[in-house]
């Protein structure tokens, strides 16, 4: 590497979601900030409590607490997710009588869960024509499952067609 053109980022804005909370947050972290230090920042910023893990969006495994955070961020934009330990038992109901179950990490996007559910329950359909609801509310596809579960480790969702109001 040519050291004359090397650029070292001193601070980096990191976008993250927190289990049980809607919306996203952002915070600047240093080039040497560890995952453990990032968790401490998140706790002070959001008030989340408990033994916490940090995931890259849609990742299957959490980041080890001793790792340097920015060395493990995705090249593609992918918000982090901070959650208590454990997977979320997810039940997706469809057309009243059918359902499927699977555990997901809290960092799973609703889009990922939707595509899985459509493949299981309506394999001939296009996932873009469906959405997931929780307690009657549509879940944004870019949000994380852990945000919808209100801090619980189990959730029941309904797979429905996107509503198209007609005249």
């Amino acid at each position, binding site marked *: 590497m040519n050291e004359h053109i090397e650029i070292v980022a001193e601070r980096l804005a990191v*976008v993250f979601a927190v289990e049980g909370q809607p*919306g996203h947050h952002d915070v600047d972290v240093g080039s040497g900030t560890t995952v453990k230090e990032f968790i401490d920042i998140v706790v002070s910023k959001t008030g989340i409590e408990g033994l916490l893990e940090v995931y890259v969006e849609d990742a299957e495994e959490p980041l080890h607490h001793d790792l340097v955070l920015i060395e493990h961020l995705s090249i593609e*934009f992918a*918000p982090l997710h901070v959650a208590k330990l454990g997977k979320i038992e997810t039940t997706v109901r469809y057309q009243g009588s059918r359902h499927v179950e699977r555990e997901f990490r809290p960092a799973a996007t609703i889009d990922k869960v939707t595509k899985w559910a459509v493949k299981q329950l309506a394999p001939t359909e296009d996932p*873009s*024509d469906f959405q997931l609801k929780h307690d009657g509310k549509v879940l944004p596809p870019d949000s994380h499952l852990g945000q919808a579960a209100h801090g619980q480790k189990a959730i029941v969702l309904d797979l429905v067609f996107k*509503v198209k*109001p007609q*005249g």
Partner: protein
Amino acid sequence: MKPDENALLRDLASPTFKVGERRGRWAVLGVKFPLAMFFVAAPVRLGGPTGFLLRSDCSGYPATAPNSQLWHGRNNQPLPDEHRPKNKQGATMVAFAMWGACLYHPIDRLARDHWPGQHQDLCWTADKTIVFLLETVHGILDSTDYAGARLPAEALELPPEFVARHAVTAA
């Protein structure tokens, strides 16, 4: 600055809004309050555009629902019907029909009374943010019902009043 303008600018600067921008779902192109001009991305269709301009009147935000229309940038007018998103039958998608100066959808301030007592989860409420509007419009386009549109490139040009405000908004 009035509370509604302050609230809109706050939400446009929020991490949640920026997540949609970073994912390429939408972008704010400028604000001349109470008007805001957005770009909403459309899924790839043969000969179709990358997306559409959406002009939203956000007076009374967030207590009052925005009133939005697809927009022709160079002409600085509502997008003509022939350029609006079409369904698989070749007709204009219902939500973007030329029903009035609004989206024909319960989320819109002017149209919501057209479905009394229905589609409550699609309606604007005071606890919503501008992200809800953009998620809704993007979600309508992001379906197999959307077949494309014949949108001239100039329709995506930014009207002058928004160009002047762009630097302020982006800061």
